[in-house]
């Protein structure tokens, strides 16, 4: 038994499905036929000959093609590429129809449609009008696409929505305000049977219906659709509230005699006012919401739209999504790097602040990596693409931030549970309130029933509750991303605000992670540059990190190493070589002393500062000592002080021997040192701190420290945008500074505080508002809350939540404050 798939065309309904089954059933070997209308595909189970199946399908009028035959042709045949915006495509089947229509156009070599963004990319010599005609003939719409229109179109759509809401607000308030004013100024809101006013109220009732049907239409449509799905949402509450007020008023107008005289009051103004006010609230919310996602929009805008690619010696600008890995690209001054890559040629400085938060431009030359979205300030660079599209660091960051913005810390989950059952519960409360007024309340009972139920429905605001956490997270995570702090999950935000101990890996976290020459001690009569040149000549053949530090230092001082002979590297001792007939040795003290060289210089000052001393000897006499150390980052000390100010115990963890660990610890001012810890034991050390009851953060470079980062309550990967780091740590700092850790913790605390304010506000609002609306204050005040006031309060409550979350945008990091 086997299955085969065949593409079909033109099958659109169950009738087609039947026809296809009838056509295929008689084909020899066919056991079962499944038709997927969405995918325009037939799956045949059994052992039929594929040619027979195709013939049967063709005969039935659904021109079938074997799947392989429809595979797009090679992109090599491209001579011109065009993009079209497609309209009217609603399902996957449309994609195939449109692609086929385009492919059948003379001159087209390849056509592919992206269903996700409804664009089609067409290669070949066909002109755009022919393509548009072909798509239109197939029953869809098409227009040439200009990339830069995307953002503007989105904004235009938002604007349109905003203007529509305002129009609806004016409609509602235009009728509601005069009516309410009439009532407040002593006008008669009662219906008196047989009087002319009854006819006037009937007219006003119909006008109100018109407002409900236009300005309030979306609430009613939404409520009905949700109801059919066994769901209830905010629309349900508004539709029920305003609908009940209108129906009651209409009943008063049409059959006043059926109600007690005191209950013949109309509430058309409430329906119209509520619709107007809630539209106003939504309009304000649209405005405020636009700002909450500003950070992601800014990140998205960082990406370059086009890239200048060098192919076959010619340079051309192409859309950035057509760049392939290993393409050579040119970036000129003032342009953005289009994709991630490695510099092949040229020198320049790149502003990477958008990714790392580091304000200083970074020098780039051949061999250095460059990241998409960073800005080229100085010269021209030629670079080779290493990651394109979704694989660039920028795209991954955007994806990560978007994902984190949708996650929720535990604190928000209670609100989630409440939100899920909120609306039906409010409906129950409204009925209970109405029954209570009917059975226990004073006259006019019917009126009180209506007002209390309507007001309960209108005042309850599920939005404020639902928005409380996500809005703050969205702004907080976005704000952090702007400063090069990537928060991977909502949980990390909450835990970060509760930390009491922070473990810092020494190498690469407190220090640069790269040994460098720090000091040269000369024997009498010797010059620093001479010693450095000699040392570099000895080390130029070595790959040891200490050797590289010496060679780099010599290069910085523009010293050229001489060619040494008889080079020998002695593991754990040092190197020796001959130069101009003399033997030179560079290595540790013990080795030189064992070779009979008297070490007359004192190296204690170097070890005290955490440097490794390298002794240089010419034949049997010592020339000097070179101190090589992993330099402490400039701002480590200050950042550690900040962490301590935030009430944290700062622990340094390192594989170094106790003495040099202590030396570094003293310089940067940590509280506790864990020295001589093997990389694989770091996680255990973190665990032992946790067992003491501490809430521990671990900061490391994310590569060797992955297990420790994962063990910690919150892992911070520092100074790197590598996959390993991002995957293993809850929070990734794109920049290298430890200030990022302090900033991340400050941002987390601010966000969690903001969430708490929002949740508190939303819970208090609802738990006070609903009972007041139900009338618990009636014994004190002698009146019920007006549904109009409930409408105003409700429309303001979600705006308040969004605006409070927006306050987080004002958060300033240490660097901003300076």
């Amino acid at each position: 038994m086997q299955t085969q798939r065949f593409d079909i065309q033109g099958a659109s309904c169950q009738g087609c499905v039947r026809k296809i089954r009838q056509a295929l059933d008689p084909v020899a070997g066919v056991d079962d036929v499944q038709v997927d209308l969405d995918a325009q595909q037939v799956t045949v189970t059994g052992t039929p000959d594929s040619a027979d199946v195709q013939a049967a399908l063709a005969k039935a009028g659904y021109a079938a093609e074997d799947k392989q035959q429809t595979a797009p042709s090679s992109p090599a045949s491209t001579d011109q590429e065009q993009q079209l915006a497609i309209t009217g495509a609603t399902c996957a089947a449309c994609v195939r129809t449109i692609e086929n229509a385009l492919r059948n156009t003379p001159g087209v070599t390849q056509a592919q449609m992206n269903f996700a963004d409804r664009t089609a990319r067409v290669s070949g010599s066909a002109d755009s009008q022919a393509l548009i005609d072909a798509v239109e003939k197939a029953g869809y719409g098409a227009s040439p696409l200009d990339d830069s229109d995307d953002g503007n179109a989105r904004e235009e759509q938002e604007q349109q929505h905003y203007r529509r809401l305002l129009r609806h607000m004016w409609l509602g308030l235009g009728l509601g305000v005069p009516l309410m004013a009439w009532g407040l100024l002593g006008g008669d809101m009662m219906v008196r049977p047989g009087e002319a006013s009854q006819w006037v109220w009937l007219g006003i009732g119909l006008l109100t219906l018109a407002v409900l049907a236009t300005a309030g239409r979306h609430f009613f449509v939404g409520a009905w659709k949700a109801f059919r799905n066994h769901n209830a949402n905010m629309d349900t509450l508004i539709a029920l509230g305003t609908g009940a007020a209108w129906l009651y008023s209409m009943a008063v107008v049409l059959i006043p005699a059926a109600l007690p005289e005191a209950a013949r009051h109309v509430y058309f103004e409430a329906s119209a006012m509520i619709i107007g006010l809630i539209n106003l609230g939504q309009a304000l919310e649209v405005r405020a919401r636009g700002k909450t996602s500003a950070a992601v929009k800014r990140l998205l805008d960082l990406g370059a739209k086009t890239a200048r690619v060098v192919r076959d010696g010619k340079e051309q600008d192409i859309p950035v999504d057509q760049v392939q890995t290993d393409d050579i690209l040119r970036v000129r001054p003032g342009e953005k790097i289009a994709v991630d890559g490695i510099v092949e040629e040229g020198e320049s400085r790149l502003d990477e602040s958008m990714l790392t938060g580091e304000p200083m431009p970074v020098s780039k030359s051949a061999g250095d990596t460059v990241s998409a979205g960073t800005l080229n300030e100085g010269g021209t660079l030629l670079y080779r693409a290493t990651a394109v599209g979704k694989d660039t660091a920028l795209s991954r960051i955007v994806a990560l931030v978007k994902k984190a913005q949708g996650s929720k810390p535990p604190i928000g989950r209670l609100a989630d549970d409440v939100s899920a059952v909120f609306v039906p519960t409010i409906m129950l409360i409204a009925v209970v309130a109405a029954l209570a007024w009917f059975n226990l309340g004073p006259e006019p009972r019917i009126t009180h029933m209506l007002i209390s139920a309507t007001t309960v429905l209108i005042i309850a605001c599920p939005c404020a509750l639902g928005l409380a956490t996500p809005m703050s997270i969205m702004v907080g995570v976005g704000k952090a991303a702007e400063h090069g702090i990537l928060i991977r999950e909502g949980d990390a935000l909450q835990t970060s605000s509760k930390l009491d101990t922070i473990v810092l890996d020494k190498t690469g976290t407190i220090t640069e992670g790269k040994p460098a020459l720090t000091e040269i001690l000369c024997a009498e009569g010797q010059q620093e540059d001479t010693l450095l040149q000699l040392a570099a000549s000895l080390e130029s053949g070595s790959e040891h990190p200490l050797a590289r530090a010496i060679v780099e230092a010599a290069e910085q001082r523009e010293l050229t190493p001489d060619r040494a002979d008889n080079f020998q590297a002695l593991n754990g001792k040092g190197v020796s070589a001959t130069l101009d007939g003399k033997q030179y040795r560079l290595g540790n003290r013990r080795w030189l002393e064992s070779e009979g060289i008297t070490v007359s210089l004192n190296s204690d000052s170097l070890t005290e500062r955490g440097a490794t001393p390298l002794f240089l000897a010419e034949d049997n006499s010592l020339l000097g000592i070179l101190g090589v150390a992993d330099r402490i980052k400039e701002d480590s000390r200050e950042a550690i002080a900040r962490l301590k100010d935030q009430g944290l115990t700062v622990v340094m963890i390192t594989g170094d021997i106790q003495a040099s660990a202590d030396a570094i610890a003293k310089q940067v001012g940590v509280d506790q040192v864990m020295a001589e810890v093997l990389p694989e034991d770091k996680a255990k050390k973190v665990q032992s701190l946790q067992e003491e009851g501490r809430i521990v953060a671990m900061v490391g470079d994310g590569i060797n420290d992955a297990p420790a980062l994962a063990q910690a309550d919150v892992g911070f990967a520092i100074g790197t945008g590598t996959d390993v780091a991002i995957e293993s740590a809850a929070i990734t700092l794109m920049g290298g500074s430890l200030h990022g850790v302090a900033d991340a913790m400050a941002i987390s605390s601010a966000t969690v505080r903001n969430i708490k304010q929002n949740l508190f506000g939303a819970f208090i609002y609802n738990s006070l508002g609903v009972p007041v609306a139900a009338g618990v204050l009636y014994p004190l005040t002698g009146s019920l809350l007006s549904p109009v006031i409930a409408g105003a309060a409700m429309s303001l409550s979600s705006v308040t939540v969004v605006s409070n979350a927006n306050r987080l945008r004002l958060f300033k990091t240490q660097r901003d404050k300076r």
Partner: protein
Amino acid sequence: MTLLINLAGLLLMVGIVWWFWLSKSTTQSQPVSDQGTTIVVADGVYNPATLRARAGETLTLHFDRQDPSPCAEQVVFHGLDVSEFLETGTITTVTLNNPPAGEYRFTCQMQMYQGRLIVS
């Protein structure tokens, strides 16, 4: 009359509980096809709102957001740690990699849009 109104109120309450909670699990669900299923986001509901899928498969969901109000701007899959921003006027594809068997809610941020994904 009093009895009638009280009875009506009680029936209404029973109706609310039954319709929004008890009978929810019997709503019709739509299987997620291999090519992906398009979910229209409009008028406060996801359509289809209940999806069915087999465990161990990668699910592709195409969200077609037609509602411009900010409520609809994000879809969150609870329990799967997946969320996506939806643009209006375009289709946003959400891919779920092998979700384990279980029932997952997918909602907008405020949980006004509500859907269910049943993986079995």
